[in-house]
């Protein structure tokens, strides 16, 4: 394909987006309704493949889509680690059934995710993680401790790396699960920093459960799956997707979350068409501080894949 052809097809996407926004954006919609429209139309994460609620666009173009939506004045796509990390990981390694189960709720902002990777003694040496998952029928019982979990207190699901086979070298016995954070056996404790804020959490897992069907990418294949997550973390960093400014006032506005209640209305910040009609006072930290506080910014270095 020549460059010209690429450009032409890309321009067609942006024309389609303009038309779609004209037809679909309505400030009277609830956030949930809007994100449902946007996600199912493939505009929340257009970098995802077409079978995963995306449009198969290169990341640069996906960023341009987000910018175009912003310029138009419509509410941006749901942010958070689900869209940035879980969705592309599941799109790459998950089954179609898993894509429909998890990615759909991510692109429509119905469920938010956190990352259950680091442990007190497994950060830079991520492959040394000790959280155990032991099979029990068609479920797994999980015990262990995770740390530096952004959004842990709000997330519906976690990208869990757990050791499923301790009798093989460390990279070969790890499995990646889509893990429910809302269950007995999951305790999330905020880590208050000396700034007075609590951006991260500890997560204690005590006989927590996860279904066999929630394994992403196959039993004991978790290291490769996690590397996809980390690669997306790096890419997201460079593009600014996922670390964008907060779109929703929340108690911790610098933590980008992606879930809203079904009836939540977005304060009418902007009218249909171009230009703001009002401003939502969103308290934000200065841009000098936000990046360094964002877990997505540091994850890429947490577990660089071994060569």
């Amino acid at each position, binding site marked *: 394909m020549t460059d010209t052809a690429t450009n032409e097809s890309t321009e067609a996407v942006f024309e389609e987006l303009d038309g779609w926004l004209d037809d679909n954006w309505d400030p009277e919609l609830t956030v949930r309704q809007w994100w449902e429209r946007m996600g199912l139309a493939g505009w929340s994460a257009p970098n995802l493949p077409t079978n995963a609620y995306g449009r198969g666009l290169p990341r640069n173009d996906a960023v341009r889509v987000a910018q175009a939506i912003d310029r138009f004045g419509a509410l941006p796509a749901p942010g958070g680690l689900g869209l940035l990390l879980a969705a592309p990981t599941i799109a790459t390694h998950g089954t179609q059934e898993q894509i429909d189960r998890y990615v759909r709720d991510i692109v429509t902002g119905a469920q938010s995710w956190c990352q259950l990777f680091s442990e007190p003694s497994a950060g830079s040496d991520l492959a040394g993680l*000790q959280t155990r998952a032991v099979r029990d029928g068609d479920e797994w019982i999980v015990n262990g401790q995770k740390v530096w979990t952004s959004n842990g207190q709000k997330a519906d699901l976690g990208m869990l790396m757990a050791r499923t086979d301790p009798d093989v070298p*460390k990279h070969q016995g790890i499995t990646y699960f889509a893990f429910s954070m809302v269950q007995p056996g999951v305790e999330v404790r905020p880590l208050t*920093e000396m*700034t007075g804020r609590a951006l991260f959490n500890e997560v204690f897992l005590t006989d927590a459960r996860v279904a066999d069907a929630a394994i992403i990418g196959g039993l004991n294949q978790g290291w490769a799956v996690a590397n996809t997550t980390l690669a997306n973390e790096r890419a997201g960093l*460079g593009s600014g997707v996922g670390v964008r400014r907060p779109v929703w006032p929340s108690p911790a506005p610098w933590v980008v979350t992606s879930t809203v209640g079904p009836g939540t209305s977005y304060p009418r910040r902007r009218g249909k068409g171009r230009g703001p009609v009002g401003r939502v006072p969103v308290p934000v930290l200065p*841009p000098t501080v936000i990046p360094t506080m964002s877990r997505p*910014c*540091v994850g890429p270095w947490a577990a*660089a894949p071994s060569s």
Partner: protein
Amino acid sequence: MRRAMGGGAKLLIDVARRNGTDQDPIVRQGLAQLYTWGELGRFNGLRLKAAKAAGTDIPGMPNISKLSMSHIMRLSRDLGMQIAGAAGMLHAYHHKDRASLESAIGDPAINFITELALLAQAPPIYGGTDQIQRNIIGERVLGLPKEPNNDRTTAFADLPKNA
């Protein structure tokens, strides 16, 4: 992040101009250093972008960026405290206290400087410590031998562990 690096220097420069510390030669020198590190980060970012666009890569660049970020944070902390002076010792631990602190100090940017100074201890530790970054740069960029290790051939259960 690249913008933040340059932006960090700008924030401090603005405060220094407002409170007159920009006339202090030590502060000026520090601001020049901070600005330079910010620019280095920006140029490295552009280099990496160009390399990626050309289908290549710059080995170790994420590690170099991470190390730089830690350094910039430390520099910002020390310089920021020099510029803020005694007011830098005050901090609003809760968001609701921020407004009253700002009015007491008279320059809202000093709040941010203090916040940054308190946070500056974190980046050299989180996301792979400075020492880990240097190990990785040593092995992958400079081609130094890896530390001797049997952890790729030994069962996880047989490896020594913390806790």
